[in-house]
């Protein structure tokens, strides 16, 4: 049965639409480029930047694999190798995995909830600049030979000044400050957008599953990132200012670092994992031609996962001398968190079971999750046992596990999401044949790289070793893994070729090439600057798959200023109208000033004092109200008394 065409939505008069377009556009030119705050513009930059970091992290991995391909490898020495794996882990975890999810979210969430923008668009832009400048700082440090080398987790006392002299670890710790500040700001933007800017009628019960995952993830960011910011700040002060938080000789504790870091670090991996659960729900629904089975169970599963994720962190510390009974509690919690994920997997299989399946590239990448993430989750259950973990911890078994869950759980669905939403971002379809080659190379290459590592771990190969002796017999499996890594690199290259080619020559997508159910497909591809000419009124989940009801749209929002609707938290009842600020270069300039503050403080504490001045100046100009705008806004207000009389 083919799709019936729903009645065309009401449109603005052409001159009003043109004015709306102009109002929400960012200024042109070079200054305009730095002043841009449109959420889609910032998000595209953010997605490209995180993808660049992904590729750089991948190149670092290729260097690692080249060194480990044979015993007694001579490609790099121990110092460079330690920098390589530290940079690889730090890049992937801090500069790619969570930021890319926030980047995609800041593009899609407003469109999915019927909003014209994110909340706090200037802060959204600031967060992007801070993130990017922090990442650039890290890579410049690496390129000048001062790359951090104490691991992405930087355990003390190794990362203290006595054992890690120089500025390497300070740069790493300050990179954390940059990226966590950006992450926290993005979380605030997303939570506010989701709770206060949903289109009228989009009750929480009608919110797309992807938006739920972003809401849960953003709350997790708020609660977990302060722990790592605290930990890394204490590390910097121990190294630079003489505090003794982590020095056992002076009353500090080496395990304090591990508790603080993993209290963040465990939720971090769920922050990476939960948004892709939203991608999977969306793509399975569209490519099975039916809503996902069990919406309430799916929402509760996401929320349960987000909560439980905070109760697992000690499973990274099972080899320490913490009390055994306490460790067993964390075994129970680490096993228990499998239950909500299992519920989701079963609901998705039920959806596939009763759907009409379109096995094109977006779905293929999502289907890989069911093999790869499930294997990773099962090895996670093995690691959850304290006794088993004492053999498997810090061996290549864990390297295998973490890549199965992170790539199966996040990267594969992310590629599916790119194939799915590329038409919306650009107006063109990605090539399907190249997409299938991309997928299969990635899938086979991934398994070839990481499956042997389970065996290597059981065969006694520890992690973070720059080489190994030939008599251990680890050479063949390592060589296989390296071949797989190069296959994956080739696959990513194919993806890049597909993107570059399809930008100009891909099939024209139209508004809704997939016949999908969520609101972003009701606008043009790519969407106009204001997203919706008229804000829709929502009457059901999957609005585009549901019968149209009246009222269908909101009319009367201003076209000559950036006016948005603010609605209530639970039921999205109309609350008030709000004017969002104009594009501005001050977020960028303030981000530059903040960068000077952060980088300077690695070299002298006085930087915090002196660099505060330009930061304060930037922030002042950022927030300074413009007289004519204030007058315009006040003039547009209507008091209830006025209306009644």
């Amino acid at each position: 049965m083919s799709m019936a065409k729903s009645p065309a939505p009401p449109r603005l008069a052409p001159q009003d639409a043109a004015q709306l377009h102009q109002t929400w556009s960012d200024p042109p030119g070079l200054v305009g480029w730095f002043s841009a705050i449109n959420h889609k513009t910032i998000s595209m930059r953010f997605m490209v930047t995180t993808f660049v970091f992904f590729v750089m992290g991948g190149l670092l991995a290729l260097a690692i694999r080249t060194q480990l391909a044979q015993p007694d490898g001579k490609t790099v020495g121990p110092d460079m190798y330690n920098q390589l794996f530290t940079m690889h882990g730090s890049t992937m975890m801090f500069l790619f995995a969570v930021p890319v999810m926030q980047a995609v979210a800041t593009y899609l969430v407003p469109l999915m909830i019927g909003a014209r923008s994110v909340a706090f668009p200037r802060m959204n832009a600031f967060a992007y600049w801070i993130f990017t400048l922090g990442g650039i700082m890290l890579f410049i440090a690496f390129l000048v030979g001062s790359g951090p080398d104490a691991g992405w987790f930087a355990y003390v006392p190794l990362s203290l000044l006595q054992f890690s002299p120089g500025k390497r670890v300070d740069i790493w710790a300050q990179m954390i400050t940059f990226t966590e500040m950006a992450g926290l700001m993005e979380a605030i933007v997303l939570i506010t957008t989701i709770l206060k800017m949903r289109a009228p009628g989009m009750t929480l019960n009608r919110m797309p599953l992807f938006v739920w995952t972003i809401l849960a993830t953003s709350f997790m960011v708020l609660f977990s990132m302060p722990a790592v910011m605290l930990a890394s700040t204490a590390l910097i002060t121990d190294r630079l200012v003489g505090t003794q938080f982590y020095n056992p000789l002076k009353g500090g504790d080496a395990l304090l670092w591990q508790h603080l870091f993993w209290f963040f670090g465990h939720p971090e991996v769920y922050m990476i994992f939960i948004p892709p659960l939203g991608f999977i729900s969306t793509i399975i629904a569209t490519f099975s031609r039916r809503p996902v089975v069990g919406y309430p169970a799916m929402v509760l599963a996401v929320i349960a996962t987000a909560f439980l994720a905070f109760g697992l962190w000690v499973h990274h510390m099972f080899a320490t001398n913490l009390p055994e009974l306490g460790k067993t509690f964390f075994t129970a919690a680490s096993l228990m968190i499998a239950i909500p994920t299992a519920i989701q997997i079963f609901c998705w299989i039920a959806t596939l079971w009763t759907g009409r399946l379109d096995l094109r590239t977006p779905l293929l990448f999502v289907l890989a999750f069911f093999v790869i993430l499930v294997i990773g989750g099962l090895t996670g259950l093995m690691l959850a046992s304290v006794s088993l973990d004492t053999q498997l911890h810090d061996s290549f078994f864990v390297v295998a596990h973490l890549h199965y869950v992170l790539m199966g759980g996040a990267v594969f669905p992310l590629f599916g999401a790119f194939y799915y939403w590329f038409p919306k971002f650009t107006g063109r379809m990605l090539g399907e044949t190249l997409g299938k080659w991309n997928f299969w190379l990635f899938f086979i290459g991934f398994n070839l790289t990481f499956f042997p590592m389970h065996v290597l771990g059981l065969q006694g190969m520890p992690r973070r070793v720059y080489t190994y002796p030939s008599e251990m017999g680890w050479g063949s499996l390592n060589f296989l893994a390296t071949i797989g890594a190069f296959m994956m690199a080739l696959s990513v290259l194919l993806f890049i070729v597909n993107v570059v080619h399809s930008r100009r020559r891909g099939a024209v997508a139209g508004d809704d090439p997939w016949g999908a159910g969520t609101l972003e497909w009701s606008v043009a591809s790519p969407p106009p600057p204001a997203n919706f000419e008229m804000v829709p009124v929502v009457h059901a989940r999957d609005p585009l798959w549901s019968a149209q009801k009246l009222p269908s749209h909101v009319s009367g929002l201003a076209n000559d200023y950036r006016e948005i609707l603010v609605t209530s938290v639970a039921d999205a009842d109309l609350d008030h109208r709000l004017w969002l600020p104009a594009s501005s270069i001050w977020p960028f300039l303030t981000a530059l000033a903040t960068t000077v503050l952060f980088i300077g403080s690695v070299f002298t504490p006085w930087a915090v004092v002196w660099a505060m001045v330009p930061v304060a100046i930037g922030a002042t100009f950022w927030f300074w109200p413009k007289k004519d705008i204030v007058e315009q806004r006040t003039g547009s207000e209507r008091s209830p008394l006025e209306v009644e009389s």
Partner: protein
Amino acid sequence: MRVRARALLGGLSWVPGVAAAVPLQDALHAYGIQAAHIGRLWNFTLGLCTLVFGAIFVAFLWALWRAPRGRAGETAPDMASLARPERRLHRAVGLATGIATLGLLLLLAADVFTSRALARLPLGNAVNIELIGHEWWWEARYHHADPARDFVTANELHIPVGRAVVVTLRSNDVIHTLWVPNLHGKRDMIPGRTSTLQLRADHAGTYRGQCAEFCGLEHAKMAMLVEAEPDAAYEAWAARQRQAAAPPATAQALRGRAIFETSNCASCHTVEGTAAHGKAAPDLTHLAGRTTLAAGILPNDGAHLAAWILDPQSHKQGVYMPATTIKPDDLQALVTYLGTLK
């Protein structure tokens, strides 16, 4: 008592390198009771997880196979689920979730039982070793009820088969981890804290271990050997360890000892019975009784020892031992002397 676990479901026998010639450093061949307990838990968990994976995989493939095909963008979406609740599907999901929960409870129980078994190693007549981690070597202090019978060694341990060994773990600098997988799981050595590992070898053999916590530049080259031997042989070894170095018999060895005592060697190394009492580096009193040098990375023979002394950095870059400027015949005498330290 047969405690050797079988490395079965890992299916490793086909993997090249898992043969008798490879140094023993793997978790799937248990030569001690603790590793055997963990090995049993591994087999159980692997079996259960493989079953679960199989079930999910079959359900998944079956769903893909049986569902009719459609085309996104053309096939109309099926919204029947909004009108009629899908009770059968919900029940199926509920049942699967219930089975999954039971499986998880089984895993929890298995883990708790294994933890209990590990904690119940009989400790009578145990050997006590205090192991201190350094960047990048292992200091071992054997403690006896009678302190006069204590002795110090480095990098290669001997333990008696069939007797418990209580290893007290500390660190001199950064976090290290003791891991001898054929005998037991690993335990961290954290500065400022003391942890304990209790194990027992039940088969004679030489087991290799490696530091398993990233500890800096040469983390990859911090290995150790554990020689498990019958009790009588162990006691004989311990008795030799307690003795100071025998006075050298030949003129060349005597000259070598003089060189050792008067050059930089003595500022870091100890040889009991000589003037060398340095504490910063491995105890060399019985160096010639060891199989390897430099924490398990070089064979202990004259040529390698000479090369190591001349330029440790070329074998283990970043190690704290500096290069030694020494004339070839002095080096020969020194190596000869060190060769007498059995």
